[in-house]
């Protein structure tokens, strides 16, 4: 369980990334965060694994305030949270297996990982994860030989190998074309259901959000302006999130310039 309690975050340059955020995410939920660019979606997500550190309030994960974590506590926390990035963030020159097995770094001793002495079961797990996203035949290819969608699947496999309790995905499909986007979202959803991993995803497309989410959180200017199940999303919700009424275009997330 993840609990944001009055969380605020002010960037060093004074920008308020998060304002007074109060959100509780239960285990196994599939939550999608939507909002305009700069609304604070990334900041929200990155707070959870402390890639950024909120400056006020408290953030509990499994009833423990992670804001005071440092060093090895932090690494342990991150070990149980998997993260998927917009640009996949694979090591382009390493092969797929090596990228995926990097998911086990948090569980592997430093020496062992430097010498590439993985446990058999780790390699097995990595292979299994690749199979789950149907990309096992690319195992020895270099990451930069793969298409965008394939790279994102590898990055999902990396997260799976990590065996996390939580998965964070920061606009995982923004660099992908629509069919591939759906593929990737489908895999995320499947994993969420099969393994009961709490999943939090940032998206631009509100209709895609509605299709996959259990629950939608709308953000605007660092604040949570909507929080509820998909069924509760109404015209008013759009108004709150985008600052105006819903139009046909919004179904593709679009807006003509007035």
């Amino acid at each position, binding site marked *: 369980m993840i609990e944001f309690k009055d969380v605020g975050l002010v960037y060093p340059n004074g920008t308020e990334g998060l304002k007074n955020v109060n959100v509780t995410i239960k285990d196994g939920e599939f939550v999608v965060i939507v909002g305009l660019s700069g609304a604070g979606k990334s900041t929200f997500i990155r707070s959870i694994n402390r890639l950024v550190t909120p400056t006020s309030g408290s953030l509990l994960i499994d009833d423990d305030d992670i804001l005071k974590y440092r060093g090895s506590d932090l690494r342990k926390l991150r070990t149980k949270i998997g993260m998927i990035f917009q640009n996949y963030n694979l090591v382009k020159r390493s*092969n797929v*297996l090596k990228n995926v*097995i990097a998911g086990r770094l948090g569980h592997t001793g430093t020496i062992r990982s430097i010498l590439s002495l*993985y446990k058999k*079961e780790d390699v097995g797990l990595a*292979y*299994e994860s690749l199979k789950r996203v149907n990309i096992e035949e690319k195992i*020895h290819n270099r990451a930069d030989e793969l298409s965008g969608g394939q790279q994102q699947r590898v990055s999902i496999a990396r997260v799976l190998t990590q065996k996390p309790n939580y998965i964070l995905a920061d606009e995982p499909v923004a660099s992908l074309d629509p069919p591939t986007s759906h593929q990737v979202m489908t895999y995320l959803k499947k994993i969420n259901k099969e393994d*009961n991993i709490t999943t939090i995803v940032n998206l631009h497309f509100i209709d895609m959000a509605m299709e996959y989410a259990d629950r939608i959180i709308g953000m605007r200017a660092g604040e949570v302006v909507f929080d509820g199940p998909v069924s509760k999303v109404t015209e008013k919700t759009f108004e709150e999130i985008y600052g105006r009424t819903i139009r046909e275009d919004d179904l593709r997330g679009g807006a003509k310039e007035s």
Partner: protein
Amino acid sequence: MTKQTPSLSQTTTPSLYPAKTKAQVTLIFFIVIGFYLFSMYWTQRKMVGGFGDALGNMGVVIEKFFPPNLSVIPAVWDPMAQTIQMAIIATTVAAILTIPLALLSAQNITTFKPLYAGVRTLLNILRTIPDLVLAVVFVGLFGVGLFPGIMALIIFSLGILAKLISETIEAVDMNPLEAMRAAGGNTLQVIYYALVPQVLPQFTSFVLYVFEINIRASVVLGLVGAGGIGLVLDQQLRFYNYPNAMAIIILIFVVVLIIEYISNKLREALI
């Protein structure tokens, strides 16, 4: 909701790299290490002393360089200036000559294969010639003086610069070039509008890098009568005025640092 336990049988556990790659990389690795060990043995076989006094001996010599006699610096300012001037001329000429050569030796700009290969080979050969040989040959051609020194620096810099810059050109984003072509630009316009802005920052920093190299290469040039700070340093060493030599080294160091500082500032301004 079954968490899949990975099946751990041998067959499903793949190796990190394909066996072939593994074998090849291992082989290369051992050849390199083997050759290194051989080289170490080979180069040490005539060593008599061992390492016992190595540091002590070095210490004795290093001590002789201290304290540096900084009072000579005003006197060596002239040759230092001469060195800088030589480096400026050589770097400028090399930078100008590099432009066509680098374009001709970049595969993505010069699509005519024989021309590309020809220029590339020429540059590779230029790069192979030791600076000392260049200096000696040019002294043979032009007689002693600044001119052969500058010529040697030009050729020497040209080899390095053209290689570095042609590699930069090969790495640029070709899309804007295509856009310019689609807008009806001719080759020169395309290069000037789409290529030049992309390589300019790298170009500047490489040119300044070569400038720095040229300042240091002047030590070699002093040996063939090209003048400059290298000659003075050499004289001081020959007369066993080590503290003076140290002062000159410090001066060269400071000049190099200043160039580096300016180079960083310029790069920041351009990027």
